[in-house]
């Protein structure tokens, strides 16, 4: 028998909390700014083929070159953001670079979540020896500063878009496994899990139907908001020259190409500003958008200060 007041939507606690969260988000100007920035980038990424039509539609991520000389050329009618070292078009690079950023962010978050959820739910639900083994594996990854391990992986895997994403995934999944494990340990104590066990529910049923739905939402939010820092890490790899291959549309790569042109000739020290200022501004804004949203969420979702 379903008790009417429990099934009534108005009193559904999870829904009420989500409503409260949305209300708080809408009343926070910083989070609105974050959402606006992210939406703008999403539009740029989706409209990339219109904003910067590729010469060869089968390889849209290759930045077109206008000659081969090394000295960058300033913004002109033909190249509205100028060209960087090797005459790569900066405008084309930043527009398609937005798509690269989303691809990296979404693929890495998705893959890390998949790994993290599998490992974390097994670890948290079964406990004991398997839990111990999985947690020691996460300890090993945590023993390295993230950037350094990612560099080591990326060097070993070779220079490509796939190896950048794989390297970052290998570094970031343990965080999600740990978070989920912790949440599951709490949910596992609940009476409804006990009840399902008593009624003969299989482990798979209990994990997918009872435990995950009650433990996974905070993880999804944390992971989504990590897109900013993941893109930052990928940009750092490309900047160091161990990320995507030369000529691939990527913000970090464009700044790498600008490294010899940071300081211009003595009479005009900021002569080549467009080579590093424009791609850098794109990275900063993108990451800022995610972090603004993340910062608002952190305050709202932290139960200790949520309603203060």
């Amino acid at each position, binding site marked *: 028998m379903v008790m009417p007041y429990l099934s009534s939507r108005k009193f559904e606690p999870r829904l009420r909390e989500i409503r409260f969260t949305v209300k708080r988000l809408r009343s926070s100007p*910083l989070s609105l700014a974050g959402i606006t920035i992210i939406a703008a980038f999403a539009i740029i990424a989706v409209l990339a083929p219109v904003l910067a039509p590729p010469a060869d539609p089968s390889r849209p991520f290759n930045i077109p070159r206008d000659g081969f000389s090394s000295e960058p050329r300033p913004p002109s009618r033909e190249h509205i953001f100028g060209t960087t070292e090797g005459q790569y078009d900066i405008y084309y690079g930043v527009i398609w670079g937005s798509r690269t950023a989303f691809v990296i962010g979404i693929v890495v978050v998705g893959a890390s979540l998949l790994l993290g959820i599998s490992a974390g739910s097994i670890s948290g639900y079964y406990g004991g020896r398997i839990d111990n083994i999985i947690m*020691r*594996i996460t*300890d*090993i*990854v945590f*023993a*390295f*500063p*993230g*950037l*350094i*391990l990612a*560099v*080591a*992986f*990326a*060097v*070993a*895997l070779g220079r490509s878009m796939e190896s950048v994403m794989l390297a970052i995934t290998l570094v970031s999944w343990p965080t999600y496994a740990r978070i989920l494990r912790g949440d599951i340990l709490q949910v596992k104590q609940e009476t409804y899990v006990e009840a399902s066990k008593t009624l003969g529910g299989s482990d798979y049923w209990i994990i997918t139907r009872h435990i995950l739905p009650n433990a996974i939402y905070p993880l999804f939010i944390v992971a989504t908001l990590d897109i*900013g820092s993941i893109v*930052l890490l990928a*940009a*750092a790899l490309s*900047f*160091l*020259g*161990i990320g995507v291959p030369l000529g691939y549309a990527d913000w*970090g790569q464009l*700044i790498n190409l*600008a*490294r010899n042109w*940071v*300081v*211009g000739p*003595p009479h005009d*020290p*900021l002569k080549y*500003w467009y080579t*590093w*200022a424009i791609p*850098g501004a794109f*990275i*900063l804004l993108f*990451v*800022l958008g*995610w*972090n*603004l949203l993340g*910062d608002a969420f952190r305050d709202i979702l*932290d139960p*200790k*200060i949520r309603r*203060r």
Partner: protein
Amino acid sequence: MSGDLRSYIIRRLLMVIPVLFGVSILIFSVVQLFNPIERAALFIRSEREAANVEGIIRKYGLDQPIHIQYFTWLSEVLRGNLGWSKVVSKPVLDALVTFLPATAELTLYAAPITILLGIYLGKKAAVHKDKAIDHATRTLAIIGWSMPTFWLAIMLLAIFYGYFGGLFPPDRLSVEASIYVQSGKFIRYTGINTIDALLNGQLWIFVDALRHLVLPTLTLVVVQVALLMRVMRSSMLEALGQGYVVAARAKGLDLKTVIDKHAGRNAMIPVATLSGLLVSGMLSGVVITETVFNYKGVGWWFVRAASQLDIPSVLGFSIFAAVLFVITNLVVDLLYAYIDPRIRLT
């Protein structure tokens, strides 16, 4: 020392062993991604040996089964043989020792500034929650947190080296200073330029070294301080809401004492756990900062090695970073247990 503290220390020390063992397995697995000739470079110790790769492959059994290879490799690593760094033409361990003082010098300035500034600003923001200073520091924190380290470094270089005509230059020393430092007249006590300059009584070298340190230090501080500030702020907010703070105020203690002595001290506890993260952040930070400013420390060497596929150096530095990080976390945990008795029992 009480019994449970001793048993905690032993338990915590034992936990380090599986982690370091795992680190070695992880690094070894990365090594397996390369072909035997590239792997042979891990064992080479001199130019002479580099000429005889076949000999190395046979000598260290690189054509042997994998578990035997692992133990051969591990025993070499434990004896300090991390292979040959081709980018600087010396053994990896020597390269680490050569480049470490420069990085130590950089963090010697960056870390204390970051910690003091982060705690001060975080506290201020919490005490004046939702006031102008809170919004200002939080906005700065978010921007700092989102700032690509390499881009900040490049902008600082363009402005303070380019625009202001060489005010704060890249590299570690100017040409004249480095010639003097390498001459017989200058004694290298520590390898840390500013300290050696003072010990040698050469004030101009001290000033020269300091001018070269300004921009890399500033970069590291701006990027690191945001995290510290944010944690200090929320920790302080939590402390300010505690009963003992209300009680202290109710008894009539003045606000400053309550903030500094009661809330402030307790708010520091979560911040102290960040020391591990700070070390990790500094290590990642120097990799990028040193590269942009051409500041020849371990980070600069690591990136050069990575971009020229100098595998032994990349792995050697990764092992070094992991060991350093594991030891820092160990020390933090032990200090913690010493300060807070509750931790020993968990």
